[in-house]
C-alpha cells in the first residue's frame, strides 16, 4: 500500500514505510538531530547508551564501594544499641530479682515477727490462765475455810444459844408455874420449841 497525498510539492500523508527522498528524510527518529520532526516518545540510542552506562556505574559503585562502609557503620551502631539495650535489660532483670529478694525477706521477717507475737500472746494467755487458776483456787480455799469457820462458829453459837435459851426458858417457865421444872425433863420441849 503506497498512498501519497501531495500538495504544493509537499507530502501530506504517507501510508507506507517507504523512505521519501529529500526534505522528509527525517523519519529515522534515532538520528533525529538534523532538524526534522522526530518522535519524542521513542528512545534515542546515544541517550540510552549514556543512561545505561551511568546507571550501571552508580549501581556498581553503590554495591561495592559506597554503601558497604555506611551499612557497616549502621550495623555497628545497631549492634551497640542492641548491646546497650541488652545490658539495660539485664540490669532491669537484676533490679527485678533484687526487688523480689527484698520482698521475700520483708515478708519472712514479717512472718517471723507475727509468729513471735503470736507465741508471746499464747504464753501470756497461758500465764494468765495459770495465774487465774491459782487465784481461783486460793479464793476457793479461802472461801472453804471461811465457810468452815463460819459453820463451826455458827454451830458453837447455836449450841451455846440452845443451852442458854433452854436454861432461860426453863427458869422462866418455873417462875411462871411457881415450881422448879426439871431441866432434863423439859429438854424435849425446849428442843421442840427451838426446832433444833
Amino acid at each position, binding site marked *: 500500500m503506497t*498512498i501519497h*497525498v*501531495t*500538495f*504544493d510539492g*509537499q*507530502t*501530506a*500523508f504517507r*501510508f507506507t514505510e517507504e523512505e521519501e527522498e529529500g526534505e522528509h528524510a527525517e523519519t529515522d527518529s534515532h538520528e533525529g538531530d538534523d532538524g526534522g*520532526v522526530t*518522535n*519524542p*516518545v521513542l528512545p534515542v540510542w546515544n541517550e540510552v547508551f549514556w543512561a545505561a552506562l551511568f546507571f550501571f556505574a552508580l549501581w556498581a559503585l553503590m554495591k561495592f564501594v559506597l554503601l558497604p562502609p555506611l551499612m557497616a557503620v549502621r550495623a555497628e551502631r545497631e549492634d551497640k544499641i542492641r548491646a546497650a539495650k541488652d545490658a539495660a535489660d539485664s540490669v532491669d532483670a537484676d533490679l527485678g530479682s533484687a526487688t523480689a529478694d527484698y520482698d521475700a525477706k520483708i515478708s519472712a521477717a514479717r512472718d517471723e515477727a507475727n509468729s513471735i507475737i503470736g507465741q508471746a500472746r499464747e504464753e501470756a494467755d497461758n500465764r494468765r490462765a495459770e495465774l487465774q487458776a491459782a487465784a481461783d483456787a486460793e479464793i476457793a480455799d479461802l472461801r472453804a475455810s471461811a465457810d468452815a469457820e463460819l459453820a463451826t462458829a455458827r454451830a458453837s453459837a447455836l449450841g451455846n444459844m440452845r443451852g442458854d435459851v433452854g436454861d432461860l426458858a426453863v427458869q422462866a417457865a418455873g417462875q411462871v408455874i411457881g415450881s422448879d421444872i426439871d431441866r432434863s425433863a423439859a429438854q424435849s420441849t425446849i428442843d421442840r420449841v427451838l426446832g433444833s
Partner: protein
Amino acid sequence: MSIASTAAQVLAQTDITADELKAAEGASSAGFAYGLAAIGPGIGIGYLVGQAVQAMARQPESAGTVQTTMFLGIAFTEALALIGFVVFILLKFV
C-alpha cells in the same frame, strides 16, 4: 482509503496546505484523546485518595502503610492518563 481521498478533495478545494490540515486534525484529536483519557483516572485518583484519607483519619497509627499503598494505587491508576498523554504527544507532535 476514504480519509485520504476526502483529505485530497478538501485540499483541492481550499487553500490550506496538507501540513496544516494534518496539524489541525492532529491537534484536535490529541485534545480529545487526552481529555477522554483523563476522565477515568481523575475519578479513580479522587476516590482513592479520599478513601486513603478516611483510612488515615480512622487509624492514624497506620498512616504510613496507608500512604505507601496510596502512592502505589495512584501510580497504577495514573498510568492510563499517562498513556493518554503519550497518545497526545504522538498525535500532536509526530
